[in-house]
């Protein structure tokens, strides 16, 4: 037994699962949970409702960027929706999963189950972050995709008028929209990181989801208080608009660059703190 056990164990060490395997299973777990579909469902339904509302009413969201063009081209619709989505929809959709993904293990008592196998704690944490980010990415893609496709089918795939007033073709417009989504993803992932931190610390999904949502809303409120103008460039809520720089001619990179480091300044410390807590914490529940 002894003689055989040691080489067998050495072989087991060589075949220890990688973080990719853990990530794959985190995605499979998300796929098996109702809340995932609640979030993705909201990302699909909201654009549909918006388009139906445009069809039955004559007015439009004239006062927001691209609001005047919603009936001219389907390409304008995802851009208008990005603005509405930043208020509470995306913080909610992303918190719903990111705020739950660690706390769910506490709720199910499964933290001890997965931590007594052959993967390190940090591998599980990294896989959870990657899975939550993947979900946020998919939700955003669905949101904009549904908006562009249904918007285009209803109002046509026509050239897009940029914020500088010039017109760009459909192909170029789509590239700019994809770029806008990339810029928009930055604050979305920052909110996800905050939700992950709260999920890790509170061990309670509801607290983490509501907490992350509250932080997003408080930043929006701070942004509209005129005495706090100096704060505005550093608020997470402001970064949700940085993509508009891409739709100017010439492209204004400044807000996008600032969004990148401001979002990183929120996300990286949150994730590092969460990782530290996750790796060191006592697993007592379950």
């Amino acid at each position: 037994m002894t003689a055989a056990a040691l080489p067998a164990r050495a072989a087991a060490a060589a075949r220890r699962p990688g973080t990719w395997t853990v990530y794959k299973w985190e995605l499979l777990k998300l796929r098996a949970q109702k809340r995932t579909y609640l979030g993705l469902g909201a990302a699909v339904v909201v654009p549909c409702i918006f388009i139906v509302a445009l069809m039955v009413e004559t007015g439009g969201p004239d006062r927001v960027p691209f609001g005047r063009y919603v009936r001219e081209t389907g390409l304008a619709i995802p851009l208008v929706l990005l603005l509405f989505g930043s208020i509470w929809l995306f913080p909610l959709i992303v918190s719903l999963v990111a705020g739950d993904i660690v706390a769910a293990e506490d709720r199910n008592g499964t933290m001890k189950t997965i931590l007594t196998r052959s993967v390190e704690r940090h591998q599980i944490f990294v896989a959870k972050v990657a899975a939550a980010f993947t979900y946020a990415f998919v939700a955003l893609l669905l949101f904009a995709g549904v908006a562009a496709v249904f918007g285009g089918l209803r109002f046509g795939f026509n050239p897009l008028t940029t914020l500088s007033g010039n017109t760009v073709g459909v192909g170029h417009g789509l590239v700019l929209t994809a770029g806008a989504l990339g810029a928009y993803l930055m604050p979305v992932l920052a909110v996800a990181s905050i939700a992950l931190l709260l999920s890790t610390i509170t061990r309670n999904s509801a607290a983490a989801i509501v907490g992350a949502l509250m932080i997003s809303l408080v930043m929006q409120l701070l942004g509209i208080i005129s005495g706090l103008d100096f704060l505005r460039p550093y608020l997470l809520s402001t970064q949700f608009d940085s993509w508009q720089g891409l739709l100017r001619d010439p492209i204004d990179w400044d807000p996008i660059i600032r969004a990148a480091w401001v979002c990183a300044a929120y996300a990286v410390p949150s994730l590092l703190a969460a990782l530290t807590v996750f790796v060191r914490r006592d697993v007592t529940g379950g």
Partner: protein
Amino acid sequence: MSDGAPPPIEARGLVKRYGHVTAVDDVDLTVDRGDVYGFLGPNGAGKTTTLRMLLGLIRPDAGAARLFGRDPLVQGAAALDGVAGFVEAPRYYPYLSGRRNLELVAALDGGGARERIDAALDTVELADRAGDKVGGYSHGMRQRLGIAGALIRDPALLILDEPTTGLDPAGMRDMRHLVRRLAGQGITVLLSSHIMAEVEELCDRLAIVRSGRVIYEGRLDELLHSTGQRYRLRTTDDRRALEIATHQPGVGEVRTEGDGLSLAADEDAAAGLSIVLVEAGLGIRALMPAAASLEELFFRLTEGDTNGANGAAPRKEVVA
């Protein structure tokens, strides 16, 4: 037993405090290869907290635990190679089927864990319900799924925390049978329990914990021997029997208990007592060895600590 290789479990001076409550107070444990080791104590004695420290789930405030010579806090998951088990009730994802849950933990095990799923499900007799969601499982099925989840790691050391708790009598019997079978395959087992009879049935060595402290560690037969055998006695005249037994050499601690007497004696002294009773004209209704309950063991061990006189020896002497 000892071939120079580090023992499956070696815990030294484990301490865990929660606020000003010391849940685990300076616990030493040594489980050797091939042991079926009982970890006996009432609920709340710190058994589960100790097991969590062994598995690296919680950090001790002092002391260290090693599994096959490796510390989970230092070496992480590598320290759990060859180790499997669960603390408290095994928990799995309620929204996935039993088999899917095992596939998930097998993926986190790596190696050939996935190929062992079918055999493990057969071993715990869960194969026909493996496709159902765990959310609909009974408590007994979850316990068995927990064992299956441990077996797919092909463990050399199995840590089981009160595996029979909450099971019906048939389920308890099956679970004990399974533990004995696994031990028969050469797996070292650490079995925590609050039921003395269970430990007596399955284990050859044990540690007894009370209020976070180990009050006995050693062989089961030595414990039973050192603490003395007790007998229950019922006669046609218990009042006279009490008087006779009290004066009989080799018989001690005679007291009235229930509808009869309880006394401490070895086999020979008990046989001698029966003759004296009959000669005195008393009819013996029953004279039988009493199975030691956990409460009784505590009573004897702590009594031994205070008087030291009557067979019961304090921990250190017994271990030596």
